């Protein structure tokens, strides 16, 4: 069975937490592991932040429509805005060997989600569709193992 939840938030950063809470609640009812939940929340949050920053140029009064769809093995989210259209082929992630602020949001989305599609074939705005295939009880290994990091 597929569960669907829709919400619309204003393009004001103070409402991003609402979207995160709704998604967390939805995923909690479907045995999605905590680490995958957090990664999916991150992707949706980054997509909405990009819309606020680039699509609506920081104006806080425009709509962001979000539609979540969750089945046993597939999570899909569609995010619709009516702002400035950007050319998806020009969305660039920050090269990871360059240590500088910014450019990570798109990288997170591309790294975490299995499918990412931007549709600008409309009069105004963009429809972003992102999908993630879910595997029961899957965790990201990095979450639970010691990491080879430069820790002191």
């Amino acid at each position, binding site marked *: 069975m597929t569960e669907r939840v829709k919400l619309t938030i204003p393009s004001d*950063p*103070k409402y*991003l*937490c609402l979207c*995160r809470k709704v998604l967390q609640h939805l995923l909690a009812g479907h045995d999605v592991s*905590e*680490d995958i939940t*957090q*990664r999916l*929340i*991150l992707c949706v*949050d*980054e997509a909405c*932040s990009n819309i*606020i*920053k680039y699509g609506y140029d920081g104006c806080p009064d425009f709509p962001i429509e979000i539609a979540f769809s969750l089945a046993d093995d597939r999570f899909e989210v569609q995010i619709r805005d009516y702002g400035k259209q950007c050319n998806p082929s020009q969305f660039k992630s920050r090269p*990871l060997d360059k*240590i*500088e*602020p*910014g*450019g*990570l*949001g798109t*990288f*997170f989305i591309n*790294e*975490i989600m299995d499918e990412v599609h931007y549709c600008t074939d409309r009069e105004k705005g963009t429809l972003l569709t992102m999908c993630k295939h879910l595997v029961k009880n899957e965790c*990201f290994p*990095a*979450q639970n193992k010691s*990491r080879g*990091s*430069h*820790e*002191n």
Partner: protein
Amino acid sequence: MKIELESHRNENGSATLMIKGEIDMNSSTRVRARLTDLFQSDQNMIVVDLSGVSYIDSSGIATLVEGLQWSHNSKKIFRLTGLTPMVRDVFEIARLLTVFEVYDSKEEALKEA
């Protein structure tokens, strides 16, 4: 979602910034402003305690990267401690965990370099 920022200046010339809550596009500007103040102070070491942070996005990471860059420019020490699993995971995805000086405890982080 509120974010709480609490900074302490310690006797050994270090400062601790304790962050509680969620760091996102809405709250990262406050974190950045507080870090700016700390870098402009005469403290020679700044330790950011993230043990109360349940969520961080790319704007939060970018703020900490800025802090790292300021530390290089000012020759001040900049350290992170108390990374929660969510925060650690985001650092790992961004391949930034090895770029920062990350400590398990605040006490270790506050030891002299």
